[in-house]
């Protein structure tokens, strides 16, 4: 008896499925957003605003926090030509690796790209095609506990050596006073892309170059880079918890925001969260440029940032491009900056009163954001990931004490030479 009804069930079910997929004119767009800090929430509200005005629907797909893992996921999806995700959020170093999978956005941008920083637009242009629109930019900054520095009469550090000393002093004094879980400094020490960023900032601040220079020559094995890594090797266990060797952005923020660190290297997004209603360090946090490396060094900061690109395999390229343009547009960038401290990619927004009120440091650190040092992704092209892996691997060995700075850099140099034996 029951089985006789089966065909009917199938028919009903098929009708239902068919009905939902073809009903109406509206299309369903899937966007993959990051989930670091408040990214996912901002992406959702932004996309929903677009959906409401256009009558389409949007599905927000969250992806791994680690940039390295996110790239792996994207590569698997894109290599298979999957149309599941229409709009992808791309790291600033990926256009060279992934360009072939995305459409040229120029026909959809209507000149909007002229409003953004030229350097980012150049970065996102591969073989004359604009493959991604800038969503937000980034550069590393140093967070510090204003209250703790004031309490111990220490000035905001100018150099890494100053910071090391300050961190040690405050950590010792506070621990003696019973605050046993306090650490001096947290950063991104996990073996992933974030460590490449951190270590490049150290080396660049000492004037040690950018691993591979603009002409493709391997420059990483030099005395200044050795000095930088030799200094940072002393941090782990002394002013930084050993666990920092497995920290990405959010793990570092977890320690700092719960009040357990004096200094933190992170991206600007941590500002809004550190000053959020529920933050134990609300109102006690300052932001400054990353310290210089010694007296001859300079303030550095590695260029980060994310972009939106439309998949070549998308079945709704027009709508997807429209969503990308909306989310990277002026209003959305301003909203993201005010609510969650994501750096806009439009110079004019750095003079906007509301943006500056929410993020006073945007003005003082403007030159850090606009002169941030780029990772060698352009010159190394398809090989960038290999270079970055070799680099963070060498740095991780130094930080964890398995190797000293100069032999590690010498090995790295020969490894990179092997890699580039037929050019990058």
């Amino acid at each position, binding site marked *: 008896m029951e089985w006789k009804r089966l065909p009917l069930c199938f028919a009903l079910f098929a009708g239902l499925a068919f009905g939902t997929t073809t009903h109406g004119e509206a299309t369903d767009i899937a966007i993959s957003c990051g989930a670091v800090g408040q990214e996912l929430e901002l992406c959702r509200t932004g996309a929903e605003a677009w959906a409401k005005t256009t009558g389409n629907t949007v599905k927000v797909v969250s992806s791994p926090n*680690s940039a*390295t893992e996110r*790239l*792996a996921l994207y*590569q*698997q999806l*894109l*290599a298979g030509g999957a149309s599941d995700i229409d709009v992808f959020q791309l790291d600033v170093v990926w256009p060279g*690796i*992934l360009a*072939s*999978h995305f459409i040229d956005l120029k026909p959809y941008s209507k000149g909007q790209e002229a409003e953004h920083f030229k350097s980012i637009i150049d970065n996102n242009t591969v073989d004359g095609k604009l493959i991604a629109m800038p969503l937000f930019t980034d550069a590393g900054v140093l967070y510090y506990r204003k209250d703790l520095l004031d309490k111990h009469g220490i000035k905001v550090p100018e150099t890494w050596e100053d910071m090391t000393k300050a961190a040690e002093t405050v950590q010792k004094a506070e621990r003696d006073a019973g605050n046993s*879980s306090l650490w001096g400094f947290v950063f991104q*020490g*996990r*073996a*992933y892309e974030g460590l490449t960023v951190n270590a490049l900032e150290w080396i660049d601040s000492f004037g040690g170059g950018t691993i591979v220079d603009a002409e493709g020559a391997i420059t990483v094995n030099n005395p200044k880079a050795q000095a930088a890594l030799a200094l940072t090797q002393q941090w782990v266990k002394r002013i930084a*918890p*050993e*666990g*920092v*060797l*497995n*920290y990405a952005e959010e793990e570092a923020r*977890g*320690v700092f925001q719960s009040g*357990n660190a004096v200094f933190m290297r992170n991206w600007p997004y941590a500002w809004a969260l550190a000053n959020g209603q529920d933050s134990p360090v609300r109102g006690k946090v300052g932001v400054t440029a990353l310290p210089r490396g010694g007296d001859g060094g300079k303030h550095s900061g590695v260029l980060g940032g994310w972009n939106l690109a439309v998949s070549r395999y998308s079945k709704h390229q027009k709508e997807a491009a429209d969503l990308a343009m909306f989310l990277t547009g002026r209003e959305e960038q301003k909203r993201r900056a005010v609510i969650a401290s994501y750096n806009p990619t439009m110079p004019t927004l750095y003079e906007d009163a509301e943006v500056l009120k929410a993020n006073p440091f945007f003005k003082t650190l403007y030159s850090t954001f606009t002169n941030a040092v780029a990772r060698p992704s352009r010159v190394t092209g*398809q090989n960038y*990931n*290999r270079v970055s*892996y070799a680099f963070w*691997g060498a740095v*991780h*060995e130094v930080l*964890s004490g*398995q190797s000293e700075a100069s032999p590690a850099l010498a090995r790295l140099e020969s490894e990179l030479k*092997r890699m580039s*034996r037929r050019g990058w």
Partner: protein
Amino acid sequence: MGLTSMASASADPGRARVRTAWMFLAPTLIALAVVAGWPLARTIWFSFTDARLDDLTRYGFVGLDNYLAFDDGEWFGVLAEPDWWNAVSVTLWFTVVSVSLEVVFGLAVALALNVRFPLRGVVRAAILVPWAIPTVVSAKMWAWMLNDQFGVINYVLMGFGVITTPVAWTASADTALWAVLIVDVWKSTPFMALLFLAALQMLPQDCYEAAKVDGVGPVRALIHITLPLLRPAIITAVIFRALDALRIFDLIYVLTSNARSTMSMSIYARQQLVDFQDVGYGSAASTLLFLIIAMITISVIALGRLDFDKGATR
């Protein structure tokens, strides 16, 4: 129709049985060829090419270059990579240690569960919980428990005074592999225990009765009766677990990411394939992994003199 087939069957019953056997096996063989044979053949083929992940349709044949090549006075290829050999030694160390520990703990648990006591059914079910949790979930769960600042493990150990400062389990190169090992043992011991328990319940009781009459103690009975009788089950379990351990990926990937010191062979192959988009090179690593697993499995079977047919008829 029915008559003729019956007639031929009675004429040559052996051949008909063989034919029937092949007929029943055919779907399995076809399915195996499609889901296992084809990808394996494709991977082996790719290992002789310079294919890249962004466009798998364009590639050139490079011979054995991905395995080993001599160029400008230097060796290249997977077999010349220190990272690969590091991955091999990490994986072998992990396999030997984890499987040995799991056999010992699994046996202990199985022997305990073989004794009659109240609520035995509940305990038997409960002990399977770690095995039932997906590896990625248990890896993430343990990652939190092992966290250096907020993890419960450090909290407990410090509470008991075992350690004075929190240990960064998954961060330090010295402890990261041990952390992976602990999680794997925690997860896989129940599986071993289950296999051993099933075997224990099949053991003939008359041996034990005879031993008791002869005044043999429980320890000697364990060594001289239980273990020899359990040997086929133990070897089967070891092969099962060793195959898993040699392929280990998710646990290490979640707990320690891409750190060199904990990289297994699978993680190495995945990195070449996905992170570096080098399908040719990554396929060569995968093929080597396959060969190593095959060799180890064959030698374990040979060394254990495991006769599957004999086991089946017994």
